């Protein structure tokens, strides 16, 4: 089958949107796991039929679901996320020590090569690994235990590990991002870690250039150029050209540099997308106009993309994991909103159309290109 499968996690269940390469007619399946918060779903790059989903509710906690048939049927797998050893403490909002407590899985990142290997980024921030298709999970404690963990503090949404990037070239290199701690890099497949936040500057923390304490919202990489990273921080859009060793600002002419997602075009490593949001207290687009901004120069110079998007009375947000691209040519770009709309562009963002308008608030959007 040639086509695209869009995996949508919402506050009240998961949805699977499918289309052919034209991306004009859509089939919408779901809700799966109705009533539960689906923080994230993602497919294995090594087996398009293998999907993982993070299912959560305040009542009943964390469940991990797995599909082996592309999302038609699902079964719960392991949901025991025990921190390694004595977990110790991080800082609470008031600066007091707070014991590490598992709350939920924010992000699932399947291995690039093995469908049974999958990483989980959790709240309170930690990184877990399963090598048996999600049945059992073990923490990679080097991240939480590398030294700065005791100083990490939660952001407003909790202290979550929300981004995991696996380097397709240097196979032992990976990146993780935590709110509100920052970006971390491992060069030995997750065993040991170090903060890579030089160049970030955050008002609102005692030392604006501190080694940790930055509220990184998301980072993105193009697989053909893994040394280049893009970041949407709480405020500021940033870029690193040396695998996180240093960062510089590329906010340029954006109307506001606050936002959550950042994504890279499938075929053009210098074409990136963000959705500017008014401010940290006004979580909606400036002027009530929903605009995706695209840079074709790797940041700095941005153009608004508005065709097909509401340009008045729009006060939705787009969350950090709710934007993705497909691998067709022209590249498809997708994002979901807290108002329940999923928008798609089949021409790299030049124009947009809603795939579906009235889902529950969208938490995550991932795309599988089925060739």
């Amino acid at each position: 089958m040639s086509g695209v499968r869009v995996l949508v996690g919402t506050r009240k269940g998961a949805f699977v949107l499918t289309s052919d390469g034209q991306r004009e007619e859509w089939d919408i399946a779901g809700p799966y796991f109705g009533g539960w918060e689906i923080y994230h779903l993602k497919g294995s790059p090594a087996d398009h039929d293998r999907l993982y989903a993070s299912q959560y509710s305040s009542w009943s906690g964390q469940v991990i679901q797995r599909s082996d048939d592309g999302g038609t049927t699902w079964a719960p797998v392991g949901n025991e996320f025990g921190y390694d050893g004595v977990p110790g403490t991080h800082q609470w909002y008031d600066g007091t020590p707070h014991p590490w407590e598992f709350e939920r899985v924010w992000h699932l990142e399947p291995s690039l090569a093995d469908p049974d290997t999958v990483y989980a980024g959790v709240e309170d921030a930690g990184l877990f690994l399963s090598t048996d298709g999600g049945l059992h999970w073990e923490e990679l404690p080097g991240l939480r235990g590398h030294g700065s963990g005791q100083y990490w503090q939660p952001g407003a949404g909790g202290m979550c590990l929300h981004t995991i990037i696996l380097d397709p070239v240097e196979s032992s290199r990976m990146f993780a991002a935590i709110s509100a701690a920052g970006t971390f890099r491992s060069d030995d497949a997750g065993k040991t870690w170090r903060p890579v936040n030089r160049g970030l500057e955050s008002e609102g923390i005692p030392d604006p250039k501190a080694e940790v304490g930055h509220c990184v919202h998301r980072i993105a990489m193009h697989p053909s150029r893994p040394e280049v990273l893009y970041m949407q921080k709480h405020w500021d859009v940033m870029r690193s050209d040396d695998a996180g060793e240093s960062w510089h600002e590329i906010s340029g002419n954006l109307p506001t540099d606050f936002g959550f997602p950042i994504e890279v075009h499938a075929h053009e490593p210098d074409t990136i997308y963000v959705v500017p949001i008014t401010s940290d207290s006004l979580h909606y687009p400036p002027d009530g106009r929903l605009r995706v901004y695209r840079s074709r120069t790797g940041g700095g110079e941005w153009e608004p993309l508005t065709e097909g998007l509401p340009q008045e009375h729009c006060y939705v947000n787009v969350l950090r994991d709710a934007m993705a691209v497909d691998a067709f040519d022209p590249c498809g770009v997708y994002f979901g909103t807290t108002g329940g709309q999923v928008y798609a562009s089949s021409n790299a963002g030049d124009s947009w159309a809603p795939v579906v308008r009235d889902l529950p608030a969208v938490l995550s959007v991932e795309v599988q290109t089925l060739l």
Partner: protein
Amino acid sequence: MIRVVLPAHLRMLARIDGEVELAIDGAVTQRTVLDALEATYPALRGTIRDHETKRRRPYIRFFACQEDLSHEPPDLPLPAPVLAGAEPYLIVGAMAGG
């Protein structure tokens, strides 16, 4: 047989239709009922009690015979009508959230 009623979202998760009936050897307590329930339906592990501490999740309550047993010691015997199968042991999702 011990009858157990689960909230809808957990019935859906564990693919349970209606009440659960559990045969329990030995003392019938909240702990042994939940142990048997989780052994029969592994998908429920961690959704009612913490995996490790076995502490009840905050928004889950346990009722039987018009009594709230949520704060009772887990090793006390359940009421006689539950043991006799005349009344179910109720696992309830608290009224909270949206």
